[in-house]
């Protein structure tokens, strides 16, 4: 068993230039991922989850700008030399992209796309790489692996492409997996199987995982901790147990309330009223304020900072105690 490594993210911000001016898609985000730990990153569409993951391994294109610190193995990934970054990418830190339909190169066989990762990060020879590729396809549940390696992405369904991408990401036994909605295109049984696979690798390799998902059921089943993002910031974080048990941010409460409870009557989903603000027109004060039933003038005047309210438990809300005390108001 290899020793795991920790990722420490401090004050990560990512800014894009747009025709409407600069927008900050990720705004001062900090979190840690320890070896063998699964961190769930949740939040509505556009809250900055994918941009956060991409920023960690330098996949933001200029003129997009990333600032802050991403410490990995004693080095800041935002300023390491390109050669070092290359060794980290795909070898130590692997990423599963959100969109399986566009993440594979259409003109190369999937076999080559698996093998090039192995070639970059392992000392395996040709035959061994092929054997490993077949093994990986078996692991992620692609039948007839040997023959399928010769195929091109357009010969696979969306779910199969997602599995190919997962196989590529896991190829070189990464120490940290950044998984951006890795199971959206998969049906429930396969989804379960893939999540089990990720968890078994976590145990076997002490692999840390950042799991982006919309599915709070998946979070409950797989994650150790959660960070909730809203409009580019983390608004609440803590252990899965604590947060499911007593959310301290109205937005988290809303998210949890929108999950149909097992055994409960199948009613309409309780969505959070309103829509997230445009990044180019964030309200002053709390970004969630306009949608929040707890908000008052204080919320509109100052933006609440993410504050420690217990060991490993943080929230960015002026009224988090009121939120915690008002149990039952939603569900």
């Amino acid at each position: 068993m290899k020793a795991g490594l920790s990722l420490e993210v401090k004050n990560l911000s990512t800014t894009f230039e747009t025709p409407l001016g600069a927008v900050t898609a990720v705004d001062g985000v900090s979190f840690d991922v320890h070896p063998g730990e699964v961190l769930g990153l949740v939040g509505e569409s556009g809250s900055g989850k994918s941009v956060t993951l991409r920023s960690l391994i330098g996949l933001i294109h200029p003129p997009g700008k990333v600032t802050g610190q991403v410490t990995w193995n004693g080095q800041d990934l935002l300023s390491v030399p390109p050669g070092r970054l290359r060794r980290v990418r795909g070898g130590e830190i692997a990423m599963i992209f959100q969109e399986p339909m566009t993440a594979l190169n259409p003109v190369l066989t999937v076999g080559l796309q698996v093998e090039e990762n192995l070639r970059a990060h392992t000392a395996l020879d040709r035959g061994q790489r092929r054997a490993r590729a077949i093994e990986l396809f078996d692991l992620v549940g692609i039948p007839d692996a040997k023959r399928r390696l010769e195929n091109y992405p357009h010969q696979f369904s969306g779910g199969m492409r997602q599995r190919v991408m997962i196989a590529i990401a896991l190829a070189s036994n990464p120490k940290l997996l950044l998984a951006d909605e890795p199971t959206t295109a998969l049906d429930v049984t396969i989804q379960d199987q893939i999540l089990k696979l990720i968890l078994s690798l976590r145990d076997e390799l002490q692999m840390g995982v950042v799991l982006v998902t919309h599915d709070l059921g998946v979070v409950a089943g797989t994650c150790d901790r959660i960070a909730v993002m809203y409009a580019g910031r983390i608004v609440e974080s803590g252990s899965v147990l604590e947060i499911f048990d007593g959310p301290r941010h109205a937005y988290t409460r809303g998210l949890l309330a929108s999950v149909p409870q097992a055994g409960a009557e199948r009613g309409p989903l309780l969505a959070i009223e309103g829509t997230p603000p445009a990044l180019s027109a964030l309200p002053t004060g709390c970004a969630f304020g306009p949608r929040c039933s707890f908000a008052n003038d204080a919320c509109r005047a100052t933006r609440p900072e993410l504050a420690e309210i217990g060991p490993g438990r943080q929230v960015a809300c002026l009224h988090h105690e009121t939120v915690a005390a008002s149990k039952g108001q939603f569900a």
Partner: protein
Amino acid sequence: MHLLLYVLRRIIQLIPTLLFIALVVFLLVHLLPGDPASAMLGDRALTADVNRINHELGLDRPLPVQFLLFLRNLLHGDLGRSIQLHQSVVSLIEQRLPVTILLTVMSALVAVVLALPLAFVAALRRDREADVLIRGTFQIGLSMPVFYIGLLLLTFFGAYLRWFPVGGYGDTFASHLYHLFLPALTLALSLSAVLMRNLRQAILSVIGAEYVDFARAKGLPARLVLLRHVLRNALISTVTLFGLQIGTLLGGAVVTETVFAIPGAGRLMIESIYGRDYPVVQGTTLCLAVVVSLTFLLTDLIQVMLDPRLSR
């Protein structure tokens, strides 16, 4: 196997195209004003002489009959005899076409060698000095007519610096290459400008693709990301354009052969048009058309090999 079937199908599809080309070539030549007899005998020829020669050449028969005869001979590999040069057209083409093909291949190579790296530099330095300089230079090259560029190169490198011969073809293969260098460069400039512009754009549209980011996320060396993931995809559209441009290149070769006094099929064609040498005009035009059709076929094949999505 797939590919072989595809090639066969494409070759069979080529037959009606070639028939049509033969018809068009035939009609063009026969509907042109003037006739070979007057061209041979001069303006003051007697009508009786003109008629006699036209009869000898079979030109007094009805057009459809002439066309069928033309086709029949074509099937036997007989393109007739040159009226002016007193040689079989096939042997003339055998002498001259390789020259034109060598010139075209050389210019295509020069164009690619120029366009490929410069397109990369321009794309990777988008809107910075290098990009602006490269695009500006090519834009100037593109806006000048081929024969003018030819004359400029000829004057400077040929007559002034005396690095290259000012015309002719030489008699060994090495001296062919030497003689054809300036003409090939002349022809290549506008093609490389077109290719460069297209490839630069294609690279820019591919370089932000998700699969390129995914390749970077695998930790591949930058060179591999560019060549395997960016270039291969970008080339698909450029290869198509390249194939289409081969026709233009051959057209340019006709002019260039004249400027540089190269004994190629293009010059043969021009001379035979002036001389109303019908069989030669027909033969050369047909051959050049076949060459263009075959390049289109080749282009399609390369495309299928580059883009697996097309192979069915």
